[in-house]
């Protein structure tokens, strides 16, 4: 339970006892089960934040000083400057591993310093000897040498630096049309650390930050890692990925958590809205599938195969996660948000095989209806649970759909106008029905 919820519960206990809901013994047992969160946890967090930011700023400052290029110092002095901070931070990290392994602040601080010292060392050697290629080549070498650090020092800051470095490399390499097949195997290096943190402190800030980094990385990596040989596979990959994020995010959180502690759900829902809006046009459905496979360019065989693995595996994994972790009665809204998976499982092969004009149009209409249906379901769920955030999310989804369709040049003005009027009348009727129900409910209340 989060500290905020524990404080709320402890504040409620005297009232519950005086109202006779709980007896003193039960209240004491609850106090024993949920002790007052120590204000020290806040101080400890401040110490960790100071350690990480201290190391981050010093390391970045050193890199900027190096970037000035002190060429008059000569090669031997510059080599020493490259290796000395690396040696010192390695020594410090070794000492922390042996003597201060229990201190999160020490581990996070030294891991950040070591990561930046390594970046500085590579940079200064490159600079001194005019070595190294583009920036992505620099990040590739840095990523390789950072990979074991998150697990070794149990450090989330180095995991985040590692993922950022890996992403930077992949973006650069992909834009230069280089192969990025090693993105996924290398990214697996953070998994042991993620498992450790999720086991030890699932509700903590470290776990939340780490999940944010992983969620954002997965979103970018899913697109970058694709070889794009079979057009349209990205639809399956991203639909599966976002649904999987929503299912897993729902499974690992508890209801009282705020948005910052639910990164997978937030990224999954936001990503789904953007993806569905894109798929509500017929353009992305054009020329997809095996019949349009690119054969005139050279592709990496293993990477092309891995695209198919992702396109099939991610939707299946999402369905598996939904079946295993979501409860239809407890999570009706989440079930609605992952309904895109069965929808694309039917639409994609159909559009890809027939590829008639109608199929594309039907797919686009289906995603319009999905956005509208899920938007309304979200609003309804928010009203039922009196959750303003959920109501607003539903309204944003419907509003975005309306804006996109209003400016959609491919639909005639008359058809658009009539559709808008019909939907508007639907809202007014709903308003009338709800108002009547409310009045009759108030009339029944004594």
């Amino acid at each position, binding site marked *: 339970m989060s500290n905020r919820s524990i404080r709320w519960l402890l504040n409620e206990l005297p009232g519950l006892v005086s109202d006779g809901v709980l007896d003193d013994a039960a209240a004491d047992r609850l106090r024993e089960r949920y002790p007052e969160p120590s204000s020290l946890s806040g101080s400890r967090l401040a110490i960790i934040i100071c350690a990480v930011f201290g190391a981050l700023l010093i390391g970045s400052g050193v*890199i900027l000083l*190096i*970037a*000035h*290029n*002190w*060429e008059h110092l000569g*090669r031997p002095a510059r*080599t020493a400057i*490259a*290796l000395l901070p*690396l*040696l010192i931070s*390695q020594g410090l*990290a*070794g000492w922390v*591993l*042996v003597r201060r*392994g229990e201190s999160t602040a020490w581990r996070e601080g030294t891991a950040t310093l070591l990561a930046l010292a*390594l*970046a500085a*060392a*590579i*940079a*200064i*050697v*490159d*600079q*001194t*000897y*005019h*070595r*190294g*290629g*583009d*920036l992505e080549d*620099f990040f590739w*070498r840095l990523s390789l*040498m950072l990979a*074991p*650090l998150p697990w*070794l*020092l149990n450090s989330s800051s180095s995991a985040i630096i590692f993922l950022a470095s890996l992403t930077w490399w992949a973006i650069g390499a992909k834009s230069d049309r*280089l*192969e990025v097949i090693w993105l996924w195997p290398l990214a697996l290096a953070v998994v042991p650390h993620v498992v450790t943190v999720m086991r030890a402190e699932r509700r903590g800030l470290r776990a939340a930050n780490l999940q944010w980094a992983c969620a954002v990385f997965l979103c970018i990596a899913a697109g970058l890692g694709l070889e794009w040989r079979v057009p349209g596979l990205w639809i399956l990959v991203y639909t599966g990925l976002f649904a999987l994020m929503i299912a897993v995010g729902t499974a690992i959180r508890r209801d009282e958590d705020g948005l910052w502690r639910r990164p997978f759900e937030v990224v999954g829902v936001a990503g789904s809205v953007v993806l569905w809006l894109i798929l509500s046009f017929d353009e992305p459905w054009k020329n997809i599938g095996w019949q349009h496979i690119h054969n005139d360019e*050279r592709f990496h065989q293993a990477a092309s195969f891995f695209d198919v693995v992702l396109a099939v595996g991610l939707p299946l994994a999402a369905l598996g996660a939904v079946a295993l972790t979501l409860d239809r009665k407890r999570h009706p809204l989440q079930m609605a948000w992952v309904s895109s998976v069965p929808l694309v499982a039917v639409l994609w092969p159909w559009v890809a095989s027939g590829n008639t004009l109608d199929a594309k149009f039907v797919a686009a209409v289906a995603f319009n209806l999905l956005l509208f249906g899920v938007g309304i379901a979200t609003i309804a769920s928010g009203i039922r649970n009196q959750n303003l955030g959920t109501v607003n999310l539903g309204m944003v989804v419907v509003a975005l759909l309306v804006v996109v369709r209003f400016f959609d040049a491919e639909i005639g003005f008359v058809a658009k106008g009539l559709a808008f009027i019909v939907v508007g009348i639907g809202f007014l009727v709903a308003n009338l029905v709800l108002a009547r129900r409310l009045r009759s409910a108030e009339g029944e209340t004594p």
Partner: protein
Amino acid sequence: MTGKTLRLVIFVVLAVIQLAVAADAIIRSELALRSGEVFRFKLQPVDPVDAFRGRYVALRFAVEKAPVAEGVPPLHQQEIFVPLVVDADGFAAFGPADLQPPASGAFLLLRSGFDHLDDNGDRVVSLILPFQRYYMTEELAKEVDRSLWRRGRRPAWVTVRIRNGAGVIEDLFIDGMPVREWLSTGGPDVIPADATDGSSE
């Protein structure tokens, strides 16, 4: 072995690898600079900036393709051996790229792009040269950029020391002078009287 000891052992291995990678780059470069064979590569400089490694003069080489030796299978972003020859003007040119190092003479171990047929129907391969940047202090790099802009496109080249397949840039020359000397010949606004007009292409 306890978890802590295992972590410590792996950490020491990682630390040694991190140091070894840096040291390997330093040693190879020093050996090439001290005992490597010198080649001149024609180029056309421009000046961008790298947030991590500072300002540099980006090197665009006049020739970044090599012919492919007979019998070499299709090349796809892989390591290749490219012999170096000197052309009639005294600049470096690439011999036929192969998967084996040449029996004699200087060569570069490079990463290839894809091989394809050129306009004459000959099989050539694009090369990814490891020396693409000449790092300078902030002020000097900007001055080179400004001078080149004012003086127009000048003949430029780098000298590269090559040893055992590795090449390290030794110096950047513009108008036949080392770049720092060239800058001291009058700054950005003055065109040296003895400079001949020409293109680096």
